[in-house]
């Protein structure tokens, strides 16, 4: 399946990236060649193969279970310290609700 300019624009939209026209021109052949390359995986019959989402090892399941106890963590000030914009102890963003006049 060939990757088209329409695909580039659609994927950029999904990924919240606003690409420039130059970037779209540059990325299209690059992404297309990478996707053509990975097509070779289809040469393998994997109908009987289980997918692997994570490396697992004996004990790994138990290792992630522990008592849920609160510990000292960030203060509000620390959590907000890197915020581009903040106010009243919250992260500030452009208004998302339109007011009726």
């Amino acid at each position, binding site marked *: 399946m060939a990757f088209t300019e329409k695909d580039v624009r659609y994927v950029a939209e999904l990924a919240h990236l606003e690409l420039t026209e130059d970037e779209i021109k540059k990325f299209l052949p690059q992404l297309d060649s990478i996707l053509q390359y990975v097509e070779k995986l289809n040469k393998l019959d994997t109908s009987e*193969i289980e*997918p692997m989402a994570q490396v697992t090892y004996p004990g790994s399941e138990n290792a992630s279970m522990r008592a849920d106890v609160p510990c000292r963590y960030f203060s509000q000030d620390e959590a907000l310290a890197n915020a581009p914009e903040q106010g009243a102890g919250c992260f500030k963003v452009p208004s998302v609700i339109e007011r009726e006049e």
Partner: protein
Amino acid sequence: MDFTTLTISQIHELLKSRQATAVEITQAHLAHIEQKDKDVRSYLSLCPERALEQAKRVDAAVAAGEALAPLAGIPVAVKDVIMTRGHHTTCGSHILENFVAPYDATAVQRLERAGAVILGKTNCDEFAMGSSTENSSFFPTHNPRDLTRVPGGSSGGSAAAVAANLATVALGSDTGGSIRQPSAFCDIVGMMGTYGRVSRYGLVAFASSLDHIGPFGRSVRDVALVLQTIAGNDPLDSTCAALPVDDYVGALTGDIRGTRVGVPTEYLNGLNPEIRGNIQKGIDLFGKLGCEIVPISLPHTEYAIGCYYIICTAEASANLARYDGVRYGFRSPQHDDLRDMYRKSRNLGFGAEVKRRIMLGTYVLSSGYYDAYYLKAQKVRTLITRDFVEAFDEVDVIVTPTSPIPPFKLGEKMDDPLQMYLADIYTVTASLAGIPGISVPCGKTPSEPSLPVGMQILAKHFDEANLLRVADAYEKAGGFKIS
């Protein structure tokens, strides 16, 4: 005496016998950085106050007659994708240019508790995506062995710092070879433990099923000492293994007689003849050390690059969704509404390679393509892992080249991402299988320009002690300077 060329054990002896202080060792490194890093450009930022405070604590402990941990007073560089509380952690990206880490990574905390002195944060490809450190948003790092060439990547700054004696050891991160390949390019030692051996708490996520933190050093012993300190269970990382940590330094006996060394035929076919020649000499050296050389097959190797780049970009597209200009990082000053703010912040904040990978990852996860790409790659990952499990029934370690190419010139490969990806072939397989790997120097290419060659040694899950024993015996037998 030049303190910057010493090993961990040599510095430890000087401190213990009071022939040098930790402050003197730290100052010597900071002075050397001041002079030499203008050319290498391995550090993005330094933290001299934090370093000297820590060095003073070590000196006070010596004065009080306290026992010194092996890493006390040892200068360490940390890749800038690893959190250091109160200091910049940029990931080599404009989007985090002003980000100050609110906490220390577990690996950093463990090093500092052991008395190690953190000198600063090192350059890397943006969000650890790349193989040359040229994808840093700030500047490229130069290979100290030849300043016209790249140091490899993505942990190129950490590798270059250790190679240029700008730190005794360093921390890097490895997702598909980002510790091992720059070690090979810079002629030093770098190791990735088993997936889950070292806590990733405080490592900025790139591809969560593949990311590791690991050490760089100029000797196997130094790498073993750092791994010993940072390995082990961490309640703050649910993927970290609750398995005991072996005595890595005690494993370095120099005796590897009877070890079965596997050589995968698929890895040597079509390889650059000069690199192949050096690797063959390395394999012959294992024979002389009393190892049994066993040809093995890893039949799914040719699918590894495709498999890796689907999985790592899919995970990256999800992990990097958090950079939206809301809670931290760059926010575009111009925007119409919230959605527009996300898009403009991300587009101005991220560099080309990061965008390319987010695009690829978003595509392979998108509706209609998930099964064809992502699910398929996860199944191929099972086959690649199975190759290793079967091979390790017959052998104890596997020896391969680290990179199919020697260090290349800055700017040489920037325009062809696929060609750059294909050069990761020998490192991504172990990443997909989650097994540990180390890269050690394996001489220089015989013809001019004479460039470093790296040899990769792989072992079974959680068999780091044996892996380090084999690498150390090879070093002791002169393998680093093979010719």
